[in-house]
């Protein structure tokens, strides 16, 4: 599943995939694959991405179940 929240958060910060990748110490391809949902990042990378974008894990990576009461 595509991670549009991550893409939006990155764009809000006016950051390119390359820039975010450089900041968290991975390749641009990895960020691209996280955004497109082709790669599930480790918790460490999720935390680093959240720190760089000023968001929480919930903001970027939490997915609610359809039957879950919010």
């Amino acid at each position, binding site marked *: 599943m595509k991670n549009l929240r991550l893409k939006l958060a990155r764009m809000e910060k006016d950051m390119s995939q390359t820039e975010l990748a450089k900041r968290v*110490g*991975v*390749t641009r*391809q*990895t960020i691209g*694959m996280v955004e497109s949902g082709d*790669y599930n*990042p*480790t918790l*460490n*990378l999720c935390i680093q991405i959240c720190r760089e974008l000023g968001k929480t894990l919930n903001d970027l990576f939490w997915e609610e179940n359809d039957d879950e009461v919010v």
Partner: protein
Amino acid sequence: MMKWFSKKNNLDEMQELQLLKIESRGFWIGFIGLAAAIAVQAFLYGVNSAGDMFLGEFIVFLCMGLYLIGNCLRNGIWDRHLKATPAVNIGLSLLAAAVTALFNAILSYRNFQNVSAAFSVFITRFLMISIVLSVTLTLCSALYRRRRKHLEEESDDIES
């Protein structure tokens, strides 16, 4: 100063995962390729010429298999899809024995053109291999269960 080599991993976690997948596929290609090479050579030159023709391949194949089995058992891993139950072990043993015995029977027929001899080769090899494999798999699955239990208990100790 060696600029072309660094002890630090140059890959990120996604690339590392991809490399592991590539290496894993490479291992299986090598493993199956060796089995195929041994089978083809046995078919072309006969099993009796093993010492001359494919001893090297056989040793490497055996080492790869032992490495896999040893490390999987040490880490309490059995298989992605199959369960370590007696029924599965016996079923697998019978299947592998049937394939190997059939191969040996074909080789025997090719060498001696004798159907009854080939049939007896099939029966003896089938019985021999199925018994040896069943015992080996049963032993390995018992070791796996013991190791699994040990690892689970070890995890409890760490938590407490």
